[in-house]
Each structure stands twice: as structure tokens, then as C-alpha cells.
């Protein structure tokens, strides 16, 4: 074990993946010599050469188009999109191409080797274009997997699993935690399962569900609730696609209550899907409406970022509301 921040854990995962499998290739804007604007790919060009870790021109649709081709050829591209906010120019390549490659060809071809890494989320005074949480935009797309880690240990194990998964994975990295989240991380190679939620705290009164950086917030709210005698079960969804319906439904059947929280705007965020599915499968167990504590339905703001955020006090209030319904 060594102590790493989330960026170091990611860098370490990439290093292990590249050292063990020469098919793994990392690229993106500023990813090469410089090691990425967040330095997630530091020293990889030095170690593995320019052919396997390199800068691309500044064109997200090209980065993913190129990655699709490289993956179809049998390589394992790990393509970085510098900020989640800049993934949209690549939307067509991801949604119409990546996601449908295997299906449309009857499995003659596939881009299962592809992993797209991108930092997401707010809380860094980044305004509209350095703060978005775009996971829900992709969650409507069969053929993709979507993974979001909450801390360094999770990040390393989930990223290694994503790179090796036989399907294309979008790996959203909570950039607010890049340096802020530090923890013990095994030095060796390990994988954590994709598609499985993680119950990080057991409880009996209400289930709190989130992913990525928002785990910190709901955990804080759970502590606040604890002080008022409310016993929260806290779940990290980890995978948005496919998502672990079973674990979540079981938890709600036990607690009778569910709160989902994400930073992205409320409307049609992934919270909506969770609510829709859970109310169907746990209808008779529900003691109060499932609540969503999310961003407002506005473009991500700057001056009012604090007010916009689904923070612990908002989650805490919602917990009380649910429990005292």
C-alpha cells in the first residue's frame, strides 16, 4: 500500500496497464510529453515511447474517431478528453459509432478495447465549461459502459478494469478530488468490478445513493443525519451503465426510502432513471417519495456555484423531509 491522490492512482493504473499490455496506447490533447494538463499521463511517454503515448491535434471528434479505428484494429486506446465539458464534439463518434460498432456489424468488428477518460464535475470555480457532469447524456446509449470512481483506491481498480473490459467504457474522473482525495492504494495490479454498486455504509432508515465526488457529500449528510438519530445506508453506484439495480432495490426494500444525488441538473439526469426503476421494483416498500437532490436546471454557474451545488446541508434537509414524510 502507498498513499496516493486520485491523479497518482490514475497515473499508476495507466502505467501498470501499459507495462503489462503493449496494446494499451494513451493519447489526447497535451497528453504526450507534458503528461496532460492535470498530469494524469505524466512520464508515460518517457517510459513507453512516443508511439504509445502522444499528443493529438486539438479535435475531440478526431480523438474518438481515431480511437474507434485503433480499437477496431485490436489495440486498447485510452483516449483522454481534456475536460468532460469538451466531450460533446465527439458525441457522434461515441453515441453513433463507439456504442453501435459491435451490434451493427454482428460482431464482425468491435471497439471493446476503447476507454475514454475525462475529468468531470464542479466545485473548482470553473463556470459552465469546466464543471459539467455529463454522465446522463451517455446513459441513454446501449453499448457504452460508464464508470465513475469516488477515491484513489477505487479509481485505480476501476480504471484497470475499464481498460481491460471487452466493451467501450467512459471513465469519468472527479477532478475536484484529483489532489484533494488521498488514500491508501495497493501498489500492485488489481481490478474492481464494473456494474456493481458498493455499499459504503449500512443503515436502516433511508438509502442515499450517489457516485464520484458526490459520495463525499452524501457521506457528510449521513453523518449529520446520524446526529439526529437517522441511520443512513450509503451506496456508491460506481457504474452508471450497466447499473446495479439489484443492490439498490434490495437496499430500498430494506430501508423503505431512497435519496439520489448528483451535481448535474435535475431534469433527465441519471437520478431520474434510478427513481423510475426503483419505484417500479420496490413500490410496495416505499414509505415516502424518492427524492433527488441535484443541480438546478440552469447552465453550470460561477458566481452562484455554492448555491447551485447539491451540498450536504441540502441532502441533510432532504433526508429529514423523506424520513418525516
Amino acid at each position, binding site marked *: 500500500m502507498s498513499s496516493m491522490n486520485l491523479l497518482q492512482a490514475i497515473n499508476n493504473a495507466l502505467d501498470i496497464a501499459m507495462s503489462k499490455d503493449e496494446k494499451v*496506447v494513451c493519447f489526447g490533447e497535451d497528453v504526450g510529453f507534458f503528461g496532460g494538463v492535470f498530469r494524469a499521463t505524466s512520464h508515460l511517454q518517457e517510459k513507453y515511447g512516443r*508511439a*504509445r503515448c*502522444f499528443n*493529438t*491535434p486539438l*479535435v475531440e*471528434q*478526431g480523438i*474518438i*474517431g*481515431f*480511437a*474507434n*479505428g*485503433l*480499437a*477496431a*484494429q*485490436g*489495440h486498447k*486506446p485510452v483516449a483522454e478528453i481534456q475536460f468532460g465539458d469538451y466531450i460533446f*464534439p465527439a458525441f*457522434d*463518434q461515441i453515441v*453513433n*459509432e463507439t456504442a*453501435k460498432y*459491435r*451490434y*451493427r*456489424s*454482428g*460482431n*464482425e*468488428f*468491435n471497439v*471493446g478495447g476503447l476507454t475514454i477518460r475525462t475529468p468531470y464535475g464542479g466545485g473548482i470555480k470553473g463556470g459552465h465549461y469546466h464543471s459539467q457532469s455529463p454522465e446522463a447524456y451517455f446513459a441513454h446509449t*446501449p*453499448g457504452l*459502459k460508464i464508470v465513475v470512481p469516488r477515491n484513489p483506491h477505487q479509481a485505480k481498480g476501476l480504471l484497470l478494469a475499464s481498460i481491460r473490459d*471487452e*466493451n467501450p467504457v467512459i471513465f469519468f474522473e472527479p477532478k475536484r478530488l484529483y489532489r484533494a482525495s488521498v488514500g491508501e492504494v495497493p501498489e500492485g495490479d488489481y481490478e474492481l468490478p464494473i*456494474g456493481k454498486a458498493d455499499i459504503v455504509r449500512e443503515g436502516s432508515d433511508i438509502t442515499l445513493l450517489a457516485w464520484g465526488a458526490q459520495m463525499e457529500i452524501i457521506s457528510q449528510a449521513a453523518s449529520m443525519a446520524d446526529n439526529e438519530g437517522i441511520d443512513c445506508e450509503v451506496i456508491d453506484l460506481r457504474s452508471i451503465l*450497466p447499473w446495479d*439495480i*439489484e443492490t439498490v432495490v434490495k437496499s430500498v426494500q430494506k430501508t423503505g426510502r431512497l435519496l439520489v444525488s448528483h451535481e448535474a441538473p435535475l431534469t433527465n439526469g441519471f437520478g431520474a432513471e434510478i427513481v423510475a426503476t426503483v419505484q417500479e421494483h420496490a413500490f410496495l416498500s416505499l414509505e415516502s417519495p424518492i427524492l433527488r437532490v441535484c443541480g438546478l436546471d440552469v447552465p453550470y454557474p460561477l458566481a452562484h456555484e455554492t448555491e447551485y451545488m447539491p451540498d450536504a446541508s441540502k441532502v441533510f434537509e432532504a433526508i429529514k423531509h423523506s424520513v418525516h414524510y
Partner: protein
Amino acid sequence: MRPSTVHTPELIAQDALHIPTFKLLKQDGTLYQGAAEPEFDESFAVKLYQDLVFTRVLDERMVNAQRQGRIPFYLASLGEEAASVGSTAALKDQDMIFAQYREQGALRFRGFTAEQFMDQCFSNERDLGKGRQMPIHYGSKALNYMTISSPLATQIPQAAGYSYGQKLQGNDAVSICYFGEGAASEGDFHAGLNMAAVLNCPTIFLCRNNGYAISTPAEEQFKGDGVASRGIGYGINTIRVDGNDLLAVFVATQMAREYALANNAPVLIEAMSYRLGAHSTSDDPTGYRSKEEEAKWAKKDPILRYKHWLTQKGWWDDNKEKALYSEYREEILAQMKAAEKRPVPTLDHLITDVYDEPTEQLKQQLTELKQHVRKYPNQYPKTSGRLDA
């Protein structure tokens, strides 16, 4: 060469660059003066002709099949057969082909059978694509022919990436990417060509400039000297070729392949041709262009031109011609009849290949769907009879 610095202001004119068209064969099958033909042996030369004819017969039959309501859609390559057959013929089998959708000639050259064409067009259980895409969206791993995708130009950066992988792997292989002059307006074109140039990819970009993107003539698509003149802007070696001249296309592509492999660099080829037929069976070109224009181009038929050459070589005659046409007509018709009788893939294939393995949710959705189909078997006649197959 211009000086690198000037002190009087001057706009470099939009037409500063003229890219000439490379031609070998005249329409009567003789060579232009000074032109050197490639060294084909008879059997190869004849095979090319056979593939051209197969393509034309296939297109003719399938357009009819669509009119008869046997398939929902078709898209012919009438008038452009030489560009795809001639270019693919200059490649090696290990080279990967990324097609747009009008390159059935290339696929035929690689050996796709009448049966395979039919199985795809009829979306039956033998379609390599498992009946998931509209007719003409062919693909074959065995033949290194990437499955076609409808969104235009997406294959252009993909071809760059694919060839980068071929290079990493040290294969003696390139990728070729076909696209129309319309598709060349997409952002993905810019992305793909620039990336291929700067990342040193052995990719051949072959633009079929057939004058139209559905109803939009090339003059409303771009203002410059066609698509070729853009190549230089990316630092890509470029050649424009008469797309109706199979020999010229072959030579240009052979040259491009050699250059690409030797230099790890892309090459851009613009093949000038004309879409003689409708865009697809959903289209009627009488609404947007003149009969005269069509007639002018009909005279430049690439298959006829190649046939004249072949005949002058003494490798072809009228008897062979007749026999070939009837052989292909019969074969295609027979395969069509067989293909349309084959059932669609079983319902299980509605959920396979979304992922490498179906997820729990998908299995659940399939289970529920099957229950429903069992309850209403008449509403789902194509699959209800074989639910447990």
C-alpha cells in the same frame, strides 16, 4: 517558389493551386499519348472486368428488387464502378477497407459472393451483420472490409486510427478510406486527414467526387478546387485521377500505397466521376438535374471504357460478354430467391452484441419480450415460430 517574406500586401488568390487530373485511357480504350499502362496479366485484367460487370448487374437487379418491394432500400454505384474496383485492386488483401456505401465493387473484388450480398440485403439469419442494418451496409472481417455505417465521414478518422494500429503492429498494411465529396464537408474529414498527416498514418483517403451529394451539386458543397486541393493544406501528398479510368485509378492507388507504406504518411486521391443513377432508391434526380447532363456522363461509362481496352488486348469478346452477363444475372436471381426465403435471425439476437455479453437488464428485457411474443404470436410472425430455437 515564392519568397518567404514579402513587404507588399497581397492576398494569395483562392485559385493559387491547380491540381491536374491524371488519365491513362481514352473512352475508346486507347491510351493517351505518353501514358503507360500498368502491367496486368490476362487473368487479373479479366477478373477486374468481371467484378465491374458483377457490380453493375447486382445494382440493376437490386434496384428492381426494391421496386418490387422485396427489400426496403438499395443504393447503386452506377457509373462509379471503376473507382472502387480499380483502387482496391491496387491494394493487398491485408489492407483494411473503410467504405462509405457506394463501394460494392471493392467488396466484390475482395471476394464477397452473390450469396453474401443477398443475405445482407435481405437481413436474414446468414447476414454477417445479423440483420441489424439496412441493405448495402456490408462488412466482413475475413475480407478486411469494415462494416459500413450510415453517419457520413465517421470512418475517416477511424481509418487513420486503424492504420496507426497497423503501423504499430508492424504489418505491411495500410487502410483505405472511401468517401464522397459531400462527406468531405463534415468535421470528421478535417479531423481524420489532419490527424493522419501529423501522426504519420499509412492511410489512403480516396474521395469519390461524383458531382452530387443527393441533390446538392458540388458547386454548392465547396468553392475551392475540389477536394484534392485541401490535401496540400494538411501537408498530404495528393493526386487527382479520372475516376472513370480504371487503369489510372489503379496506378494512382498503387503509387499511393507504396508512398504511404514507405513514408508512414497518408495520401489523398480524388477520383472524378459522376453518379449516373439516383442517389438511392429513395431518390429521384429528375427533380434537380438535367437529362443532358446525365447523357453527357453516360457516354463516359467506365465499364465500357475498360472493356474497349480489354478487347483491344485480345482478352475479351462478345461471346464472353454475353456469357458473363447471363451467368451473373442467373446467379444473383437464384441467390436472391434463396436469401429471401431464409428466416431473420432468432429473437435472441435482438440483444446479443450490444455488449460482449448481454447484461442482466437486457436478459430481463428479452425474457419479458419473449413472454409477450408468446402471447401475441401473430403480431410477430418473423420470430414467434422460433422462440426456442
